[in-house]
């Protein structure tokens, strides 16, 4: 029986530094010099609601610091929400922690392997924590080590493993107790392309076995290729949700032309809106405009003409085809990579 995941109006404000990995990394610690300075209040989630259906691959897409890791933290019992509710299947995450922990497997953003154990022991002890019998856990560890191409290094301490090997072992560990819901926080960050493809295959295969997968990523290609449905998250809120196709179709026109001007004139934007095929024009920082249109390159000569006529100096043009990146830009005015 596949298990779904639900959150309702999750809020989280960190009163000290958020844990590494949650809130996307390195926030300067305001309390580093002692208690005299006022406590930092870092809002990470601001009313985040999600509904992930049983047996789907769901992606949380957003830039660093958007609240993806905090959402995973709340759903995996590691972060206490300031308010709001979360459920794994019908179990309330905060009130039925032990039951929830049996249903989930977690691959953290930063490997947290047991440096005092070998790769095989890490898998075996993990299964033992879940009460899996000795014969079964040995067999399963062997099979997963083989699948993740770690058999040769199985009896070595993991301290000397490369980043990619640690990541593979983390995923194998999360699968050891055969969880119904698998959480992967930035699973392909830092992986080489070959390992990334192996990872995607393994995620798809796990999903085909009827399991629910929730992954976070800031990589649009990954979200597009892997996820059946996505939620785009920014500043702790879901700003858009749907299938990748639906989401991309919701961008006006589809194509985005990011224009940068040396000196911009006010009537320039008006003239751009009048061009055929242009759906929407947004000014960006007084130095340029984002033009949403249903054609790309063929608009350039017309734009160049307009610029020349109005005295605006066109300094940079970037054309992108329909993509989730453009969707993010459309909703937030920022690029995912900014």
């Amino acid at each position, binding site marked *: 029986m596949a298990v779904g995941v639900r959150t309702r109006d999750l809020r989280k404000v*960190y009163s000290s530094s*958020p*844990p590494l990995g*949650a809130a996307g990394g390195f926030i300067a610690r305001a309390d580093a010099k002692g208690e005299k300075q006022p406590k930092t209040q870092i809002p990470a989630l601001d009313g985040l609601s999600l509904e992930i259906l049983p047996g789907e691959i769901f992606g949380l897409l957003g830039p660093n610091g958007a609240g993806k890791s905090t959402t995973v*933290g709340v759903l*995996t*019992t*590691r*972060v*206490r929400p300031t308010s709001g509710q979360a459920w794994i299947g019908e179990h309330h995450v905060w009130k039925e*922690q*032990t*039951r929830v*922990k*049996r249903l*989930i497997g*977690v691959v*953290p953003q*930063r490997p*947290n*392997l*047991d*440096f*005092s*154990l070998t790769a095989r*022991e*890490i898998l075996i*002890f*993990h299964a*033992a*924590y*879940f*009460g899996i019998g000795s014969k079964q856990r040995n067999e399963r560890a062997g099979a997963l080590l083989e699948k993740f191409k770690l058999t040769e290094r199985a009896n070595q301490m993991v301290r000397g493993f490369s980043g990619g090997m640690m990541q593979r072992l983390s995923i194998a*560990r999360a699968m050891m107790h055969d969880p119904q819901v698998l959480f992967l926080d930035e699973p392909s960050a830092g992986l080489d392309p070959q390992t990334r493809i192996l990872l995607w295959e393994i995620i798809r295969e796990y999903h085909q076995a009827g399991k629910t997968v929730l992954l976070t990523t800031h990589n649009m290609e990954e979200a597009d290729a892997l996820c059946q449905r996505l939620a785009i998250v920014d500043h702790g809120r879901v700003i858009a949700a749907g299938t990748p196709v639906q989401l991309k179709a919701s961008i006006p026109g589809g194509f985005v032309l990011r224009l940068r001007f040396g000196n911009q004139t006010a009537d320039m934007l008006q003239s751009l809106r009048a061009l055929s095929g242009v759906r929407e024009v947004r000014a960006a920082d007084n130095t340029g405009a984002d033009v949403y249109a249903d054609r790309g390159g063929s608009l350039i000569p017309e734009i160049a003409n307009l610029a020349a006529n109005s005295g605006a100096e066109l300094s940079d043009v970037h054309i992108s085809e329909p993509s989730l990146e453009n969707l993010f830009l459309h909703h937030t005015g920022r690029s995912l990579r900014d």
Partner: protein
Amino acid sequence: MNWKTFGAMLARDAHVARRNAIQLLLQTFLQPLLFVFIFGRVMVGSGYLPAAYKSLLLPGIIAISMVFTGIWAVAMPLIAEFQWTREIEDRLLAPIDVAWIAIEKVIAGMLQALVAGLIVIPLAWLVLRPGVDISIHAPLTFAVIIVLVATFSACGGLALGCSINQQHIGLMFGMVITPMIFFGCTYYPWSALKTFPILQKLVLINPLVYASEGMRATLVPQFPHLSITAVLFALLFFDVLLLVVGLRQFEKKAVS
């Protein structure tokens, strides 16, 4: 309560302790044995200290070895696991209440402290002999005391390990451990502080005092020592206090 999970976590700690046995042994016993050798053999042998000092020293050495093994065995892995390798996260996700993960650490630390105490007795005796006059007069009281001492050391390790930042480990030794040893009545009986009446009262906040005095009361009762009742009550008090503080700190670290 999930005993399978709890047992698997204990098995993991035992497995790691076995793997690091030599390192653990050196770390635990080298310093106390050198101390015993210098003060018990060299200083006594050359006449700077009276022969009776040997017997006075031994209980203190047992107390130090147990207490620091317990603190070290719990605090150091916790500091590393929470702040450096973050490997404790795997156990925090195991199907068991988070408090039991802390209690497992305490039990593992207690066992190591007890083993340290039971090994250091014959070792120190071997270094010091002849002329050590110790015997276990009240085995049951002795057993209760060493269990209480092991508990307070492991709970102290839990409280320290969950309160101290990785970069402050050096400070922990300078500001907590060193004064604790020197004001812990380990190398001298508590009554020897009577010429410093204020200090004599102040050191009573140091749980190591009761560990040393409790050892003295049960192993070498011919020397002055605190009453066994006072020792038992004080150790029990510190056990509970440090466990409560340790669990609270652990939960703060485990859930953000």
